[in-house]
């Protein structure tokens, strides 16, 4: 059956990947019939009414889903479509209580105009009581108006949809996990809405094991646990996990939302020296054995608000005493191991490699990555032969954007082994300071000015 999805008109590039991921989670064969980034209306085909309701029940970006009775460029076209496709349905709703509404996107209708429109559907013959509160059935005429239609005096919408209400999405969930009311957050905690969308796109679900290697205060594991997953997390900074050791801790956040049963384990660790057991790529066969996670979600440090560090000594020649001192002291409980700046691109590459080794077949990796909006400074989407890009969603700021990039772990048999050999041969990354190692950080602190504008400030030679 054809259904109309009424999206929220926000985070537009995340909407289709979210709903497609939910179709995978629910095992629903969904076809997208029409969709546009500029419109909140999307027509999909699903096998049944039950499937339509399940499809959107945990969607953050869907407001509601409706059984589509008619659509068209004019109201007459809608009536013609309703006459053509739905007369067999009308009899079902002859006696139940009902309500009719007009939902105008980017436009307004005076109430007498609304009544005229609603009355034009009188031929449906519904004789039950009209109830504005909690009716048995709700019918809605959606109008898609051109942008700025009221000031421009545009008389009519560009498109109409008419449908019977089926179900509402989960747009109240972000309020439940709202950062403003969360006990313990830090400067880089992911906002609840985007964390929940990330959890949806990465296929977090009951019984699934999800891992965040940059867990911080736990935004992603909490969002995944909210959808029933068992979650794991680690961070190079153990202080972010422990918080103040009393109420403001990562564990306290799980507790606040009643999600403690979904907290599998958190520990301090560095992704480049991870304690997670894993096999070299290409040795296992059944797609599960030797791999642990159904999904990995993270927002790696960019090196702007938080340092991008791994274990090690920055310059062993300059500070030769650090290693002997470490050998002497490392067994003391308050020992903090030295850390050094690390390349942002190498970090992304390590995440891909780690994910290829630890995610089961068809499981997903979703991570956030910043990039400059300027095309010349744009950082390309990282690739890995074992991972296929499933979706790229973008949140745009003034001079830079951040993208949520999602990959599917493909089965070993589908991997291009030549690409894998080429990847292993290529290891060229040099530099010691944060700026040398991190093109995004460098561009950020240069205010995203291109090379030609910045070179003019160099002193001319005499």
């Amino acid at each position, binding site marked *: 059956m054809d259904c109309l999805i009424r999206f929220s008109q926000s985070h537009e590039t995340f909407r289709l990947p979210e709903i497609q991921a939910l179709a995978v989670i629910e095992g629903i064969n969904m076809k997208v019939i029409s969709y546009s980034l500029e419109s909140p209306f999307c027509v999909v085909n699903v096998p049944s009414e039950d499937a339509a309701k399940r499809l959107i029940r945990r969607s953050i970006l869907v407001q509601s889903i409706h059984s589509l009775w008619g659509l068209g460029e004019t109201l007459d076209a809608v009536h013609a479509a309703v006459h053509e496709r739905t007369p067999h349905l009308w009899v079902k709703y002859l006696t139940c209580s009902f309500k009719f509404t007009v939902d105008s996107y980017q436009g307004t209708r005076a109430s007498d105009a609304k009544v005229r429109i609603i009355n034009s559907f009188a031929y449906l013959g519904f004789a039950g009581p009209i109830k504005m509160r909690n009716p048995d059935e709700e019918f809605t005429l959606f109008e898609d108006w051109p942008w700025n239609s009221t000031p421009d005096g545009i008389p009519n919408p560009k498109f109409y949809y008419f449908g019977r209400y089926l179900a509402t999405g989960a747009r109240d969930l972000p309020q439940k996990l709202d950062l403003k009311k969360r006990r313990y957050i830090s400067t880089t905690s992911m906002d609840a809405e985007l964390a929940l969308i990330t959890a949806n796109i990465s296929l977090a679900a009951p019984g699934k094991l999800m891992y965040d290697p940059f867990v911080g205060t736990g935004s992603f594991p909490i969002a995944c646990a909210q959808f029933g997953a*068992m979650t794991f997390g680690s961070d*190079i900074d153990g202080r972010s996990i422990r918080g103040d050791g009393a109420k403001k801790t990562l564990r306290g956040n799980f507790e606040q939302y009643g999600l*403690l049963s979904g907290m599998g*384990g958190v*520990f301090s*660790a560095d992704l480049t020296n991870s304690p997670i*057991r894993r096999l070299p790529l290409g040795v296992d066969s059944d797609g599960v*054995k030797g791999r642990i996670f*159904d999904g990995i979600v993270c927002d790696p440090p960019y090196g702007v608000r938080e340092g991008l560090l791994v274990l090690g000594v920055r310059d062993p020649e300059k500070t030769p005493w650090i290693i002997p001192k470490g050998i002497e002291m*490392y067994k003391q409980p308050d020992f903090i191991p030295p850390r050094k700046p690390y390349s942002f691109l190498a970090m992304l590459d390590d995440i891909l490699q780690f994910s290829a080794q630890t995610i089961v077949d068809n499981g997903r990796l979703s991570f956030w990555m910043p990039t400059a909006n300027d095309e010349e400074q744009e950082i390309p989407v990282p690739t890995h032969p074992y991972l296929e890009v499933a979706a790229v969603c973008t949140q745009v700021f003034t001079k830079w954007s951040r993208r949520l990039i999602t990959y599917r772990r493909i089965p070993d048999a589908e991997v291009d082994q030549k690409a894998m050999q080429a990847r292993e041969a290529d290891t060229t990354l040099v530099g010691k300071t944060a700026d040398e190692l991190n093109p995004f950080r460098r561009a950020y602190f240069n205010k995203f000015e291109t090379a030609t504008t910045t070179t003019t400030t160099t002193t001319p030679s005499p």
Partner: protein
Amino acid sequence: MKVLTLNFLTCAVKACKSSNDSFPLHPKDAELAHDDIEINSQLLVNVLPRIDWTALRTTSTELGFPELPEQPPTAETLEADEAMLKELHTLLLETQMMEGKLVCGHCGHEYAVREGIANFLLPSHLV
């Protein structure tokens, strides 16, 4: 940190990765805690193929739990065997290691566990 997590963790030292003795890590002076959690058979069936059974048997014995059978159950037998589901649920998901150390059987490195959080950060000479 749930006992399930222990089954996923090995020694972080790169030189130990190739040794069979580095997994599982051995709990030392372990203080355990117990949470009452509703049993979730879907989770246990999904977790089963990810578990290294030999390592789990070792951990279970070292933590003072009854000995597990030599062979892991199949997904079908596990779903039908309520006693086994309960036993695995208690061990893997309800039991938490709160304090103590995790010791590598190969290099002897001890990873401290405090307030249920293990610390796998290595000093520079081991990185």
